[in-house]
């Protein structure tokens, strides 16, 4: 198992190298000049030239790539073009926000998705099954952007139950240690702050969770249906075991394997692509930051941000692979 984990961890290196090459090539073929965008209508030839020189944009692309790799070996992601800050510092401030939101959304998706899936599978063709599957179809189809606005209108503006946007109330202060606000509030025993953070986290997490929740529910249902038809389930039932025990102890363990794959993929996607949710809820996360980097052609943000997101994606998948073995010992890690 240990050698498997080491091997998979090392495989991150060629993956990231591939990602970096693809990104560089994409940047090379994409038109647009960061210096021009930075200076806008006011730019003169002289200021543009000075800016390009300063940013190292006059170098050929392969030289820029070489410089990037050289820095990467030293774990230095360079400085952003627009904000003139270390890319790593910018990520450290933003990524915890995205992770916190994704974990909360994933928790909701898994909890409700798996429960819905199991009940639908055990009560196939019942009204509950039909209703939950229609609901999950709607969940997959609703654009997050629209859902976010509706949630805000109903639960914030009319009912006043939740705040509309942001991570923290303007009149609330918490001591920032890790940038994971939930953790920071707990570490500093700031319970009022913790309540406010969770309060702010709820609506964006609900909005972000709808699509994965629907996918997980449908996947759990179909996987469980397949497992429930297997002979060993019939045997278990024949032994006289209760329905709950059969489903939760015998069927679920097998049924969860494909679901975990989906969970891993969905979680990986969330870690880098929660752009819409982050934009609607003014959530200062990494997705919106990378998107802005693309719009502004901030190569340093795009490269650094994508590297980190890709690393996390690979790590999440590694964890999923390890979980396979834990959940089902029949799958040996080779």
């Amino acid at each position, binding site marked *: 198992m240990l050698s498997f984990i080491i091997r998979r961890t090392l495989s991150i290196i060629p993956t990231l190298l591939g990602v970096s090459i693809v990104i560089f090539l994409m940047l090379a073929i994409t038109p647009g*000049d960061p210096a021009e965008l930075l200076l806008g209508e006011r*730019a*003169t030839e002289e200021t543009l030239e000075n*800016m390009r020189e300063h940013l190292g944009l006059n170098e050929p692309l392969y030289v820029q790539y070489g410089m990037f790799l050289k820095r990467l070996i030293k774990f230095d992601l360079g400085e952003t073009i627009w904000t003139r800050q270390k890319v790593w510092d910018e990520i450290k401030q933003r990524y915890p926000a995205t992770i916190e939101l994704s974990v909360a959304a994933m928790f909701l998706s898994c909890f409700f998705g798996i429960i819905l899936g199991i009940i639908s599978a055990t009560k196939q063709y019942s009204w509950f099954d039909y209703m939950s599957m229609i609901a999950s179809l709607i969940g997959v189809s609703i654009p997050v952007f629209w859902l976010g606005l509706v949630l805000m209108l109903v639960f914030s*503006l009319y009912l006043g139950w939740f705040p509309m946007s942001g991570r923290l109330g303007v009149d609330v202060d918490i001591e920032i240690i890790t940038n994971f606000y939930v953790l920071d509030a707990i570490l500093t025993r700031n319970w009022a702050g913790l309540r406010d953070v969770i309060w702010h986290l709820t609506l964006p997490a609900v909005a972000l969770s709808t699509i994965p929740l629907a996918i997980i529910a449908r996947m759990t249902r179909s996987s469980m249906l397949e497992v429930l038809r297997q002979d060993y389930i019939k045997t278990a039932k024949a032994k006289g075991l209760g329905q709950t025990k059969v489903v939760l102890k015998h069927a679920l363990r097998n049924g969860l394997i494909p679901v975990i794959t989906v969970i891993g993929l969905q979680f990986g996607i969330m870690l880098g692509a929660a752009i819409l949710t982050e934009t609607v809820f*003014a959530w200062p996360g990494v997705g919106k930051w990378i998107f802005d980097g693309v719009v502004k052609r901030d190569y340093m943000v795009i490269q650094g941000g994508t590297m980190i997101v890709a690393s996390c994606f690979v790590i999440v998948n590694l964890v999923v692979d390890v979980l396979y073995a834990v959940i089902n010992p029949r799958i040996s890690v080779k």
Partner: protein
Amino acid sequence: MIKKIVVLLGIFIFLACGIALADNPKMGGMLVFGRGGDSVGLDPAYETDGNSFMVCDNIFEGLVFYKDESTALEPGLATSWDISTDGKTYTFHLRKGVRFHDGTAFNADAVVFSIGRMMKEPNVKFMGKGWKIPKQERPPEYWQMMEMDGTIGSIEATGEYTVVFKLKRVEAPTLNNLGMDFADMISPTAFTKNPKEFLRNPVGTGPYKFVKWIRDDRIILEKNKDYWDTSGGPYLDKVVFRAIPENSVRFLELKGGNIHICQFPNPADLPLARKDPNLKIISQPGMNIGYLGFGLTKEPWKSNVHLRRAVAHAINRKAIVDNIYHGMGEVARNCIPPTMWGYNTDVPGYKYDPELAKQELAKAGFPEGKGLHELTLWSMPVPRPYNPEGLKVGIAMLGDLAKIGLKARIVSYDWGTYLKRQRDQPSDMDFFQLGWTGDNGDPDNFLAVLFDGLASPSIRTQWKNETYHALMLDGKKTVDQAKRTAIYKKAQQLMYDEVPVIPIAHSTVMWPAVKKVANFKLHPTGSVRLKNVWLK
């Protein structure tokens, strides 16, 4: 009778008290300003975006201030100034008793440092020990764009509170330039302590002090209790600039009372704001111009004034302003805003007249558009303050051009490519949309910077007219404002006659705010000044 007089007197006293109370500034409270994005940095010398400047406006101050709602100048950190008769020496007398937020005294050396650090080759002289000017991390963009290296020769502190600027050439807009954000005074102590980090920990003399910045979320400022100007604000205890990228969410936050001012709402939300009893709309004519340019480096546009005039009369600009600007603007007659000194009210503006346009087209040698290839109309891909929806404006123009027989199609690129290719004046560009938001309230900042193609190949319109060029040079060298007004009026008439571009519109800035916000005024330069704002 006496009874009536007493009652009337009572009513009068009651109303007078009410008015006095309503207008009385109230101390304290926290104002939350909702805006579309975060600041890039907070070092005024190195920033180029409005979201950075609006925070800097409250932390820093310059030697001269723009007055409320105008670009006329008034004393700032300099109480007065003398300009030599040859127009090349500016002596500033500084305000005494001012301190930066970190306790550093504001004096002539601080001015020498603040301005000197932007010079390419600093030619400065301190009065006292002074500070070593650190190497520039990157080019100070605004300093360069306003060509300050070509203007300022040296800066010298000749007394503790006296600074002398020696100019290399006479440049009439110099004082106005010094009112811009890039020329703000910074604490040399704070800057030299860590030049790289200054943009995250700004220290100025302004009414509010920097407290905290959570990236992409909020910037918090607090009241500067030791502010030098005791005649007015700051009244608020705290100011929070919140970044809420989505326009409709920002407006919902305003409706919910969670923010006090909403920057750049969707035009469609403005009628809702008008109906809401808790909201009001604050507006200000923008110091901007959106125009349609021609590919003037090639024929037929270069030398065929009738053709250019035909296009000018063909486009229904009022319909564009009414329907695409949603009425938030006015049709432009000249290429400087009407609120600016030097505006020529005698210029009639091009009236919408397709018949006249057809006649001009015939005079141009292209009756009913015959002989012209399919034209390209470059439309801006991004909303700008002077043109909210470039593509829609372009489509409207296509329809107007078709009415006089001109066939055209829309061309658009991403913003960076658009700007870059437009600068190259490619052969496949017949018309292009562009515009400008003024920096310093001087007509030179519009008329010379945008249209004097003989001054530099960087001028985007590339209109090369000897008479116009001579007028622009005259305008720069003349210090007397009355004489300059005459020069710029003549220039506007010449533009009207020669049609190097078609001025489309000046947009109006409209921001909804909660009624609690008192005394907030939008500034033509886009500055957000909260010194005299209070919450009722």
